[in-house]
């Protein structure tokens, strides 16, 4: 396949096929089911389903978005913008960061966590972004997508 050639290419993020994070998110609750015979501990999976699929609009959500908005470094009257240096902080505290954290937690629960290559898998998940974004033309934006 020509996937390899594409990976060098550009803006489309192509995760490694074997990345555990993707396998969990994409295939875990799919496929043909014979109900009585699916033997998997559901502890981690239920968490994953709830946190990754539904972000409930709640007061807590509103406050997180308000905080993220307040941290923007807007040029108030010109309509232009200055991109902030604390994007990393904002994403950590913003809704997206929170969901990501919850998903990682669920993955850890599912896979037992703690073993040595857990970190490797998380890295696999993030590394392609960083690598690909080096071809981005906007250095400020790049920082934001290389979290």
């Amino acid at each position, binding site marked *: 396949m020509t996937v390899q050639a594409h990976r060098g290419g550009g803006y489309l993020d*192509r995760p490694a096929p074997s990345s555990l994070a993707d396998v969990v998110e994409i295939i875990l609750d799919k496929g*043909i089911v014979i109900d009585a015979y699916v033997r998997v501990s559901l502890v981690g999976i239920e968490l994953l389903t709830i946190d990754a*699929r539904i972000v409930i609009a709640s007061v807590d959500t509103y406050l*997180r978005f308000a905080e993220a908005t307040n941290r923007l470094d807007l040029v108030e009257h010109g309509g232009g913008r200055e991109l902030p240096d604390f994007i990393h902080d904002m994403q950590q505290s913003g809704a997206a960061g929170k969901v990501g954290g919850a998903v990682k937690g669920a993955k850890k629960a599912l896979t037992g966590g703690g073993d040595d290559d857990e970190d490797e898998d998380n890295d696999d998940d993030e590394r392609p972004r960083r690598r690909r974004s080096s071809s981005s033309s906007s250095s400020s934006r790049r920082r934001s997508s290389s979290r």
Partner: protein
Amino acid sequence: MTPPQQDTATFVYAVVRPDHELPDVTGVDDGPLELVVHGPVAAVVGRVSDDRPNGRRADLTAYSTVVEALVPGGAVAPMRFGTVVPDDDVLVHDLLAPYADDLARQLGEVEGRRQYHLRVTFVEETVLTEIAEADPRVRELRAATRDLPEDALVGDRIRLGELVTQSWERWARADADRILAELVPMLTTHRVRREPGLGSVLDLALLVESERSQEVEDRLEHMAAESAGRLHFRLAGPMAPYDFVGTG
């Protein structure tokens, strides 16, 4: 076929056609693959210990490795991960016999087609900035609350967040519609896995004719480039058609 032993169970990977050539890979617990044939369909299975715990990371990896290795050999309908039956007779009795025609039909539907998983998300600070610039109420509430302690003007902060999330969701739907309108003509079919909203703009399983997969990848690369800095496109696959099979 090895007769099932007393303390083994049958781990089921996928349903294929009876003439499907098994790939040279091992499955869960490094066990060999076997084919259980019934009429127009067959199940790819392996033997596992009956009392082993299931759902470990290595199991998931072994399962997906087997399913993907089956793909070059012809149509594959993956079983849900973790499907373990007591023995081959139960497999035939509970799945292959009652669903034979349905499974054969589904194999026909995914033949020569590949699945992708597309996830499109907003680049948070870009979209928040756009929302603030577009909505004077957001700017006013921001100006009123941003330099005060977090517990001050909580009502205004909630209102600010509410306005922002409403715009965010509306814009996510608009972008999702726009992307879908461009993509759908190239697809065999698709399934929205999660509605547009705060979590993602698009969370989509795509089924694509193998001959068109390069075209779809190229289009997505182009769309990702066009909206770089505002939308993040993440495309996994091609993979087996996990989202497009089932015993419904």
